[in-house]
């Protein structure tokens, strides 16, 4: 076959790559802006939550620059789409660090993208402050540059609920429990952990199951749960299946005395609409952040968020607060030790760091050592009920029948 087209193509491609390499920006002069690279899922499967994180990051950028930046320099966020692909996320961070020579990087959305990205950052000695990678996969890597800006590893989301149930007098506690869980990196680990703790305390497991993430039909599962008649249902759920599970239970006319879902009920804007406004009473969930929380900088965060994006405080997704918290931590640590990644990593491993997510403190592999909030629907509204320090109301139990 004719050789010219192949040769031309190869030469052209090499030339193109060389040209792109030549136009690379070299390391920024000291007086320029502080460049922070972030890979976000702005398209693909994670694009909805990815957008919330983007909002939080951008809000922080505006806020901090309005106050004069950090160390007298403006902050410049370089945000790149990763199309919800781990390969692209890793490529993005590689570009940020070795092409754009950014000063800092912040984390992407989702544990699944955080794990490979943190590995890239670790290779080059960059700190990795991240808002959404809280699943076991991230911490199993045992990296020392990771800092997860939520109160605790995601797998501990249900611990507050477990503690509360086990604090009730024995006669009031549930005797039996069912554990439906979604097959994803967080949901079934959460349910498994809660089940282990409950079983140890003598609560009998009458049914447990894992269902795949594209399950569209919860009816077989619901009918099995209803047949087993558990006092308590602990759902390792994300939002979509969380709603479906409750709808299914309503349709099957089965109402347990205690109902906890890892996610679903913790979306105050969506939950009543998705399951029916008079079906929410007494349902528990867990949350890392709450609009009315009096955590560090939270009221100012809410005010600025509503000013920039509009809407209601109750509709703000925790993802935006988590991203904002990353910025808060970065701001504080840079002001303390300057723009040196090694020093930042060392500094963040000690002390307590106040954010809108609460005051954070990490162990050596990046796991925060705090607690999540237990939230409950009471009178048509979502309230934090534990820990006592931040509770607005006390927990209400048992759960009434559907439609009340």
């Amino acid at each position: 076959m004719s050789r010219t087209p192949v040769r031309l193509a190869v030469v052209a491609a090499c030339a193109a790559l060389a040209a792109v390499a030549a136009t690379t920006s070299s390391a920024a002069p000291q007086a320029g802006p502080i460049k922070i690279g972030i890979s976000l899922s702005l398209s693909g499967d994670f694009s909805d939550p990815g957008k919330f994180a983007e909002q939080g990051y951008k809000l922080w950028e505006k806020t901090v620059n309005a106050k004069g930046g950090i160390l007298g320099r403006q902050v410049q966020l370089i945000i790149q789409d990763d199309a919800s692909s781990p390969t692209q996320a890793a490529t993005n961070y590689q570009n940020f660090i070795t092409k754009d020579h950014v000063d800092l990087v912040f984390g992407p959305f989702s544990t699944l993208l955080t794990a490979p990205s943190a590995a890239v950052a670790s290779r080059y000695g960059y700190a990795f402050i991240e808002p959404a990678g809280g699943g076991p996969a991230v911490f199993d890597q045992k990296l020392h540059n990771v800092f997860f800006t939520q109160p605790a590893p995601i797998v501990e989301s249900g611990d507050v609920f477990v503690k509360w149930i086990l604090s009730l007098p024995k006669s009031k506690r549930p005797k039996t429990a069912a554990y439906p869980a979604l097959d994803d990196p967080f949901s079934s680990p959460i349910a498994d952990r809660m089940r282990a703790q409950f079983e140890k305390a003598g609560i009998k497991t009458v049914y447990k199951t894992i269902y795949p993430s594209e399950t569209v039909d919860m009816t077989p599962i619901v009918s099995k749960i209803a047949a087993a008649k558990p006092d308590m249902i602990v759902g390792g759920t994300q939002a979509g299946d969380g709603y479906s599970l409750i709808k299914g239970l309503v349709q099957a006319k089965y109402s347990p005395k205690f109902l906890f879902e890892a996610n679903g009920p913790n979306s105050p804007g969506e939950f009543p609409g998705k399951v029916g406004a008079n079906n929410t009473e007494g349902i528990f969930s867990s949350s890392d952040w709450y609009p009315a929380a009096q955590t560090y900088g939270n009221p100012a965060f809410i005010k600025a968020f509503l000013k920039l994006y509009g809407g209601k405080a109750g509709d703000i997704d925790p993802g935006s607060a988590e991203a904002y918290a990353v910025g808060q931590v970065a701001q504080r640590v840079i002001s303390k030790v300057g723009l040196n990644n090694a020093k930042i990593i060392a500094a963040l491993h000690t002390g307590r760091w106040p954010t809108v997510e609460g005051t954070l403190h990490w162990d050596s592999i990046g796991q925060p050592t705090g607690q999540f909030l237990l939230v409950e629907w009471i009178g048509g509204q979502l309230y934090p009920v534990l820990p006592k320090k931040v509770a607005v109301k006390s927990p209400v139990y048992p759960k009434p029948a559907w439609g009340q």
Partner: protein
Amino acid sequence: MHEVVQALILGILVGGIYALMASGLTLVFGIMKVINVAQGALVILAAYLSYALWSHLGVDPFLSIVIVTPVMFVLGVAVQLVFVRSLRGPEASELSLLVTWALALGIEGILSVAFKTTFRLSLPSYADTTWTVLGYQIAEVRLLGFVASGVLLALLSLLLTRTRFGRAVRATVQNPTAATLLGVDANRVQTLSFGLGVSMAAAAGAVYGVIYPFNPGSHYDLISRLLSIVVLGGLGSIGGAVFAAVGMGVVESLVAVEISPIWSSFSFFVVLIAFLIVRPQGIFGLRERVL
């Protein structure tokens, strides 16, 4: 035993809806040897249209079938004219596979931009109503969906057997050359049939959107099931597709209840592969014609 029968009921109800989607897919293959990989995406597109009508104008999802179906029929005709018809030559079938896959991606992309990736579900007033018949739970929306599918499949059958167009379609499936010699306009039949196939998807989409939460990415799960159904039923056979669809619904439902939900779709694929060992052309499939 109770839950086995309950699972059986659910499986049949679910299978009916898949039968409607699959009928369009297998019809199109029978006529022009084109596998429309975008069928799943078209179902989701119709689900979004139906959802939009419900959320903005309060139109009942089942009634929206009347609106959504003609709209998507026109869309189907347009797609066939623009994308599919231009494929010629001996490799048209294979190329159509890839072209329709590209179309599916395009539809997914447009829907992602327009509606974001949040899961949607139409929730008319009767969304939570269930009836208890002989001790078994039947959700009203599922029953209505099943009935609607049945009615539409019956209408399709009438169309194919009692009308001139239907006769032309069946003639083209059996023997396109002879059909052309007898005066059938092959191009027109192909275009209209493609539109018909998409209409089936549209109606099914309106039904789907009131039973199952969906987002733009949902089409992958749909098309994987649909393709397996039409292959199992025999490419080109509508009766086979209906049979296989209900069979799939029952298998998945029973496995979910008796074994575990994580194995339900897998088990159907295994059934398919096992069946193909014995009978590569599917249940009612015809061996390749030689002409």
